[in-house]
């Protein structure tokens, strides 16, 4: 009844129970914080070029490079349980052969970014100088909502997009969409909402105007459009 083992077991059991209850309480406080994200995205310059998926490939595909401007305010998404938010801009388009052009069945990310909370800055995979600067930018702050404000002018995309068919030129009904994913310290992950949920509002804006990709850029042998071959595995 009062052996050392039972005592140790009781302490451990109590400890884990407290830990999980505390975790659950922290996770549930997410629902109390209102979320009012907003974003405006505009297409700037688009180029479609032919290239190869990697250096040794003989397959030629069309790659679209979409420059865009983004003005977003995700500051309300940060609270004490926010570890990071992942923001991305994706291009969506319907299947060219489809009769209903409003159903966008294809989607590809063209740009993304990780915005950490000051509490998780040390986990970022960045150089020592950038790290020092990042940590200094939020000195003394445990939450820094100002990081949720994004202003990009004529931003070059991080990823050039392609389609399995290899054809993208003169593609019509393309849209840019802004999305986010909130990563908590503990609890449930949440994404861009489709419907309003109590305190959490649907993103304001976040969709560009419909646009059309231009015709293939004619130029004698473009060498610089090759996709990077250096790949890093998990």
């Amino acid at each position, binding site marked *: 009844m009062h052996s050392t083992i039972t005592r140790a077991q009781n302490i451990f059991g109590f400890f884990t129970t407290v830990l999980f209850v505390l975790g659950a309480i922290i996770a549930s406080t997410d629902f109390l914080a209102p979320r009012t994200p907003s974003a405006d995205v505009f297409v700037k310059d688009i180029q479609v070029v032919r290239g190869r998926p990697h250096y040794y490939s003989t397959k030629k595909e069309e790659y679209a490079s979409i420059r865009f401007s983004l003005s977003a305010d995700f500051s309300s998404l940060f609270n004490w349980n926010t570890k990071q938010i992942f923001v991305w801009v994706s291009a969506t388009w319907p299947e060219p052969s489809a009769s209903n052009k409003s159903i966008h069945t294809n989607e590809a990310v063209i740009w993304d970014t*990780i915005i950490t909370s000051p509490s998780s800055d040390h986990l970022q995979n960045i150089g020592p100088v950038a790290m020092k600067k990042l940590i200094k930018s939020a000195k003394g702050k445990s939450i820094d909502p100002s990081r949720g404000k994004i202003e990009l002018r004529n931003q070059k995309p991080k990823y050039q997009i392609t389609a399995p068919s290899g054809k993208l030129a003169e593609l019509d009904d393309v849209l840019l969409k802004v999305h986010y994913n909130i990563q908590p310290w503990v609890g449930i992950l949440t*994404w861009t909402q489709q419907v309003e949920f109590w305190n959490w509002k649907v993103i304001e804006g976040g969709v560009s105007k419909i646009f059309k990709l231009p015709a293939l850029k004619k130029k004698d042998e473009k060498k610089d459009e090759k996709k990077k071959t250096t790949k890093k595995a998990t």
Partner: protein
Amino acid sequence: MLSALRNPRQAASQIITFGLILSTAFMMWKGLSVIADSPSPIVVVLSGSMEPAFQRGDLLFLWNRNFFEETKVGEIVVYNVKGKDIPIVHRVVRKFGTGSEAQLLTKGDNNVADDTELYARGQDYLERQDIIGSVVGYIPFVGYVTIMLSEHPWLKTVALGIMGLTAILQRE
């Protein structure tokens, strides 16, 4: 301490209790598996390719049903590559088409390049059936125990031994 060994009836009941604990845990795991429709509803992060979101040892809860919508771009999915046994946790960055034949491309947030290199030879995209679940919930660090256990296998024997001994030697 050793009185339990002298009393076979009590020893038997201790063994049953021990078995009951094990089978309860197993049933809870399988029950969760049925609810989430995933062969492995809880996974432990093994690599740093999704940092800073997930570190090694973090616990992820998966959901593998598409009640309202299909698995889409931006979701963090766990998938198995054909012929490889290690599940990989990465984000979907491209999706072409719909339904079970949709072509999905994944990438780790912390990786420079997408996962084409990780897939099986000749495989350029994942299909829905390769995915064993999308991440919906997160608990940090708790799963580190399993990493310890798989990296130091003797710990398993020790842990099982201690559990067995305490269950048998304990009075009441």
